[in-house]
């Protein structure tokens, strides 16, 4: 649940970033050097915070696991006669009941999960952009229809619907793309609603009206005039769509309804649950897949936090206030110490005079 204000705040984030002249003049020389005026593009990018660094690090680690690691591990499906061995130097994360290397499985499963996450993220974002932006831009009947459609899709619970659809598709014809399509079709509605609200507020601005009066085609007005205003929102929604897709796919695979012949993080958990990993105490089998999902989700959400600050500058101001308050407090403490030091010195001088 992200709170997105009435729109139009997107650009007001920029001025708060550049120091106004008054305070810049008061600042000391080295300070002024540090705060060079930022370019317009820079102010659209999130500010580096410790939490953003953590998020980027987590996502990078998972990406490496999904892209590089599969090249170095052995066959994830090879069966050995060493079943359920705990982690050792030979098998970094131990083995499954049938002696498969959990580490190799994890690397390959992460790759497929990321793949499906990105595919669904792109599809869902495209759908939500179409229904959200185009409908709101056209207005009238199209808007009413599209917004009704997205509201209906929003209230119908997604996963039960996906389960029913997947249940009717025979196992053989359940491929990666059909699963991705079903997941995308059931997950675009919330974003479309937010985009619609934002588009409605941008649509009424003068420069959009000017572009329309100048005879620009509607696709050009949407892409060139409206879309750039919505980019931070769309970026945040894309990130959320990836998290939601990875989670939904894992859930679907966990109940045995995922794409056939695929090895994703959800499939690993499915086999772990059905291989009695819990009652056998094989924590190395069921812990890693969920942890990868959770860490990926956490990393992407932390990145989203920073994007949220661009969308809603009030959140950013809260952080800046905090920083300023801390700096002021530190300064005050320093002054106090210096003051106390001086008075202390004076007191000892007086002692000495006496």
């Amino acid at each position: 649940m992200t709170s997105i204000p009435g729109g139009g705040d997107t650009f007001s984030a920029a001025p708060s970033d550049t120091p106004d002249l008054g305070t810049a003049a008061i600042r000391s020389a080295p300070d002024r050097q540090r705060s060079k005026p930022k370019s317009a593009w820079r102010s659209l990018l999130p500010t580096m915070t410790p939490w953003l660094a953590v998020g980027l690090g987590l996502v990078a680690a998972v990406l490496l696991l999904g892209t590089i690691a599969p090249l170095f591990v052995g066959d994830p499906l090879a069966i050995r006669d060493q079943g359920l061995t705990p982690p050792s130097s030979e098998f970094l994360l131990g083995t499954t009941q049938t002696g498969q290397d959990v580490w190799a499985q994890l690397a390959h499963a992460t790759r497929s999960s990321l793949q499906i996450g990105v595919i669904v993220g792109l599809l869902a974002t495209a759908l939500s952009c179409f229904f959200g932006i185009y409908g709101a831009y056209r207005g009238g009947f199209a808007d009413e229809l599209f917004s009704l459609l997205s509201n209906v899709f929003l209230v119908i619970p997604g996963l039960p619907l996906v389960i029913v659809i997947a249940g009717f598709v025979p196992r053989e014809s359940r491929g990666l793309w059909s699963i991705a399509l079903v997941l995308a079709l059931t997950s675009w509605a919330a974003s479309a609603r937010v985009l619609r609200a934002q588009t409605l507020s941008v649509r009424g601005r003068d420069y959009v009206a000017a572009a329309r009066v100048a005879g620009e085609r509607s696709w050009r007005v949407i892409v060139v005039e409206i879309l750039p205003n919505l980019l931070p929102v769309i970026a945040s929604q894309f990130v959320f769509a990836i998290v939601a897709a990875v989670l939904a796919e894992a859930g679907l695979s966990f109940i045995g309804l995922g794409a056939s012949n695929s090895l994703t993080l959800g499939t690993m958990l499915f086999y772990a649950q059905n291989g009695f990993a819990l009652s056998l105490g094989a924590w190395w089998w069921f812990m890693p897949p969920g942890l990868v999902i959770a860490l990926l989700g956490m990393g992407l959400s932390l990145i989203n936090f920073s994007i949220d600050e661009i969308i809603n500058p009030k959140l950013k101001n809260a952080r800046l206030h905090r920083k300023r308050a801390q700096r002021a407090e530190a300064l005050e403490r320093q002054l106090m110490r210096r003051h106390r030091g001086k008075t202390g010195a004076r007191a000892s001088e007086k002692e000495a005079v006496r």
Partner: protein
Amino acid sequence: MSYFLRKVGFYAVALWAALTLNFAIPRLMPGDPVDILLAKLQQRGGAVSPEARAAFAALLGGDTSEPLWSQYVHYLGNLLHGDLGISVSYYPATVTEVIGTSMPWTIMLVGISTILAAGLGVLLGAIVGWKPGSWLDSLVPATTLLSAVPYFWLALLLVYVLSTLLGWFPVQGGYDVALTPGWNGEFIGSAIRYGFLPALTIVLASIGGWLLGMRNMMVSTLSEDYVLTAQAKGLKPRTILRSYAARNAMLPSVAGFAISLGFVVSGSVITEQVFSYPGIGSRLLGAVSNNDFALMQGVFLYITLAVLGANLVVDLLYGVIDPRTRARS
């Protein structure tokens, strides 16, 4: 008044859309569900009469002699009579009976844990958002870990630690099978003991979203003029927090209930599977693995009905709480 009418109208449209989806899905998908179903029924010793075949065909399609629109009318007519067909996996029970026995379990589980999660999350969010910048507030991003954890994995983890290792809670089931279900203390106690872990899973997994949403709204609300006015009047901080800031910041959380409830229901379906909880989620998944299409569709309809109903109630309440929504429409 027109606000309420609009809301009721919208949910009527949503219900109709769900019914139509339910009608269209089996007809659009490859394969012939009716034949699979009848073969199953025969295995279980059920007599395949022409009437049974016609009833399933009305529900799932496959009867090509009848035009689509009359199939549709037939299907809606059956639903109006509450006739959802016969469950194959629980033969000879009807779908309505199977759902009737499992629905209360899910409603109790999801209802109680959602109320707990929402209450706790909003409360914590209000406290954390009240002082943006405190050390507590800087810990908020860590809650994203909780909301990014898959429900079922959290469930597995809790089972492993609290049941397998420590043995505090039963691993699976909804109640002690030695007891007969009824409204007596012993049975209710056992139901609470068995339901604790599933409920804890749902609360832990969904509290982060509530907390975060409330915290962000709280931060936005604090810069409103009426909060400044309240401070200038010299009201106690506690009063401002409770009667000025939190009450207004809560509104989007209430409005966002629709989305969260959908997520929680989806999550609880899979959580029930982990615990073999006797609720509607386990029934749905059992139906899927047994190709019990009639039960599958019935469960989906009931889940949708419950979610739509809960949302309608919340939306109507919202109209009462926030007069602006009524004025706008």
